[in-house]
């Protein structure tokens, strides 16, 4: 377990352990549980009345604009991480600080624009 990717082997083992816990729990469940399905039991729950129409009903998604906003800003934010580890290293100092304010200004301007366009409001 050495080298850069060696430590991710441990992460992989833990992932497998998590899957095993899930599978083991459900296996124990299978041994212990009753199984008596009836048509009524398997209907979709809708507060006790018979379900109306399809479960995947159409609805207006009001917050789809947030998805765009998120994608734009998250892509920006990803670049923060490699930058964050070196920005105060000797020789960078003020230059990177100014760059940071340029970055912040871009994001702030984006949010201000979205706010001005009223996409942050519900209606």
């Amino acid at each position, binding site marked *: 377990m050495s080298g850069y990717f060696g*430590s991710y082997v441990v*992460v992989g083992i833990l992932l497998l352990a*998590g899957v095993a816990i899930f599978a083991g*729990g459900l296996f124990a469940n299978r041994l212990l549980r009753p199984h008596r399905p009836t048509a009524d039991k398997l209907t*979709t729950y809708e507060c006790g009345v018979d379900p109306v129409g399809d*479960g995947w009903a159409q609805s207006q998604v009001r917050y789809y604009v947030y998805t765009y906003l998120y994608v734009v800003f*998250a892509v920006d934010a990803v670049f923060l*991480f490699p930058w964050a580890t070196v920005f105060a290293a000797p020789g960078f100092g003020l230059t990177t600080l100014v760059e940071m304010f340029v970055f912040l200004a871009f994001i702030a301007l984006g949010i201000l624009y979205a706010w001005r366009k009223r996409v942050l409001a*519900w209606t």
Partner: protein
Amino acid sequence: MLEAVLDTALRLVLIIGAFLLLPLLVGQLEHKAMAHMQSRLGPMYAGGFHGWAQLIADGVKFVQKEDVIPAAADRAVFKLAPAVALVPYLVVMVVIPVGPGLYGVDLDAGIFFVLAVMGVGVLGSIMAGWSSANKYSVLGGMRSAAQLMSYELPLVLAASSVAMAAGTLSLHGIVEAWQWWWLPWQAIGAVVFFVAGLAELRRPPFDMPIAESEIIMGPMTEYSGLRFALFMLSEYVGIVVLSALTTVLFLGGWQGPLLPGPVWTLIKIFALAFVVIWVRVSYPRLREDQLQRLAWVGLVPLALLQLAITGVVKVL
């Protein structure tokens, strides 16, 4: 070689033990603290002494329950969703240090790894919401997705502020670099991170996606038995992980006077878990538009402000 393997195995066993035990402690704390805040007693019967075995009894009950999958559901996705909600939190625990040298592995992309994997957990609730073929669940799943979108950004920005302060992404390195004066310095970031984390866990007052009195547990409406229990477990593991991350990133992890390091870490984790419970009892649920507004108009600008403060203090 053998020694290294045994060492790793011991660490993993301890992590899995914490993964199975700590959520139960937090759950029991929630039962009792919430009850007393509401002038009730909470569980008193199971196990004899103040109902200490209540959650074990619940587990024994859940494992014997029938596994009902609605006829209309998308079976494969429906069955898989609880695992997708639960397992990422276990994987995140591998990088959380509880003391000097006490961690599963020390990844040098620590924070980045944690944020990426925690985002996967929310997919479980979106999968559950869509695959149930139930109107409440679809609504709840959509709301979960919208909430993840909005609160991931302040979470990432607040976390990167700490990375800037410490000059490393490794969680172990961050705690080692931590000084007491980081508390006021990173205070805004800490609040933003904790609040955004609460929203990502869909805990009250950010529980619009599961709102039991409105859309009947949202994505979990159709779930019963052990699969439902696993969703509940993932919520409580989520509380542990969020409290632990806030502790490690903002509260100095194992650093503290007198007591040994791991004890300090646990004290801080449980204090934050208590705050999570306290907030649940104290605040009414935010409406969906208020939720989105808080993220974009409140938390994101605050996180940007924190980045500016961190940068200026660090360089000057």
